[in-house]
């Protein structure tokens, strides 16, 4: 673990881990609210939003990307409601139609526009570019205290660090209202809590995490991290606080193990090229969920056995 590791593996692992944590934190509440697919949905809707924002502004700066993604999410919500009412079909189906259609539109738009100057193509949208987020200026662990080398860190790292810190802060600050309104919406309303605003803020926070993570690691990781670590964590404990800690641990484990396995696993097996880090990280998170389903201490829903 010398200079090579710092140069080529440290920053992608950190970015992957922070992206995973940023998505897993709101994912805990989305899952308990039976809104787990919102993460999936957002990461799909983000694509056309980002492409349009790029076409309008000509840059891939964070703010226009975020505004584009937000506008796309808003459009998606309006479309879902419209289809649900006019088409008289169930909400899940309306959601599925809108998100796949918007994502497909984003893909077409992307193919037709000249994005060769920037990191914006279909493959990037799905898998991100984690392996390329390396720190060439680093010469070893000493670089971590070298201001010149630090100033050449991949820009994605501070960006996703800020978003992960924001998600952690929001989780801590709004812990009680989030927990209360997630468990018992009616009671929370009766207490005078702004339940609708809390629910909307949660979705917006998830969208911010999704957009920031999408930029660095692509939509595959975003989708996996909203669902797999929190779902596995739920099977480990019957306490919400402990569940959130487990989800952070599982997100970290997925990112680190996934990145290492993608980079070195094929070499160990005798193949000469690495596999996609995003794909491997998502796969590891799925394997963790599978193991939690099989061996997690709280996989059996006790309430069912106790009877009503």
């Amino acid at each position, binding site marked *: 673990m010398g200079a090579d590791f710092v140069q080529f593996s440290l920053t992608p692992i950190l970015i992957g881990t922070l992206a995973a944590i940023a998505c897993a934190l709101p994912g805990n509440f989305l899952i308990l609210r039976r809104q787990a697919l919102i993460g999936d949905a957002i990461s799909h809707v983000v694509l056309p939003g980002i492409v349009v924002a790029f076409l309008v502004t000509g840059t891939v700066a964070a703010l226009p990307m975020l505004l584009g993604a937000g506008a796309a999410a808003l459009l998606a919500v309006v479309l879902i409601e419209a289809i649900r009412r006019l088409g008289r079909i169930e909400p899940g189906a309306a959601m599925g139609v809108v998100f796949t259609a918007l994502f497909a539109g984003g893909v077409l738009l992307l193919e037709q526009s000249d994005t060769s100057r920037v990191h914006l193509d279909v493959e990037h949208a799905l898998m991100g570019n984690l392996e390329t987020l390396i720190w060439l200026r680093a010469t070893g662990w000493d670089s971590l205290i070298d201001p010149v080398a630090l100033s050449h860190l991949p820009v994605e790292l501070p960006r996703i660090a800020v978003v992960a810190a924001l998600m952690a802060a929001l989780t801590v600050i709004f812990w009680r*209202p989030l927990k209360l309104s997630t*468990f018992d919406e009616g*009671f929370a309303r*009766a*207490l005078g809590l702004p339940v609708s605003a809390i629910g909307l803020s949660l979705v917006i926070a998830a969208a911010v995490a999704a957009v920031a993570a999408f930029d660095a690691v692509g939509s595959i990781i975003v989708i996996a991290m909203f669902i797999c670590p929190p779902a596995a964590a739920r099977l480990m404990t019957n306490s*919400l606080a402990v569940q959130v800690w487990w989800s952070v641990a599982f997100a970290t484990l997925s990112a680190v193990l996934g990145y290492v396995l993608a980079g070195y696993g094929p070499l160990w097996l005798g193949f000469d090229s690495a596999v996609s880090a995003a794909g491997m990280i998502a796969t590891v998170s799925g394997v963790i969920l599978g193991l939690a389903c099989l061996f997690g201490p709280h996989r059996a829903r006790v*309430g069912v056995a106790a009877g009503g």
Partner: protein
Amino acid sequence: MAETLTLAATHGARTDRAADPASPLAVRGLTVSYGDKPALFSVDATFPAGAMSAIVGPNGAGKSTFLKAALGLIPAVSGEVRVFGQGLAAARDRIAYVPQRASVDWDFPTTVIDVVLMGRYRRLGLFRRVSRAERAAATDALARVGMEGFADRQIGQLSGGQQQRVFLARALAQEADLYLLDEPFAGVDAATERAIIDVLKALKSQGQSVIAVHHDLSTVAEYFDHVFLVNVRAMGEGPVATAFTPEALARTYGGRLAATQLDQLRLTGA
């Protein structure tokens, strides 16, 4: 209070009672609609203080909707709600609410004492630590419903009756003056029903007001002092002795009650 509570035979029998500051809950002209179908239409109701009141009506008559709209949980098309003569926002701290047990996911990762402490939320806010006094209040509320041994139990391990008691304990922890309960006896065992009614009667004896959506007509006379009959429109209200009549029930249920059921009620009422 009680002497003014005559049987309001038809909706729109407007009185000045809605302005009575002593009434724990007074509603005027409440209309709620789901889609294009009104769930409640121009409902007036005034509940007496220090009494146990039942909200009675057939399935789909808008009983729960009435409670939810009165609490501001669902939007009303029109109507005025006064709680102890005040607007809803000003009176929040004086209201405790017990939602329907089935309205939440009991698989949620939390413990019994945690749920009861939710009743202290308005005192705790975002950050205040759960002090020994707060925990004691929650433990005391659990003891009042006979669940003190279950504080650290995961809520998914509770039976239906125990779940209902935990919800009642949470409302008790709110230390309110008005208790609104949505079907508190639905699907609970006889022992729990007894325990709940004892707690509610104790509240009444301390001068607090209880209003419950109730579906079991055979126990209305035994449990409650006051009754409010509703079927989209207000169908009558008043003391159980004068307002809970076979005629009022026939009007409310629109012939959906069998004659034998009415006979039974006449017997229990007599």
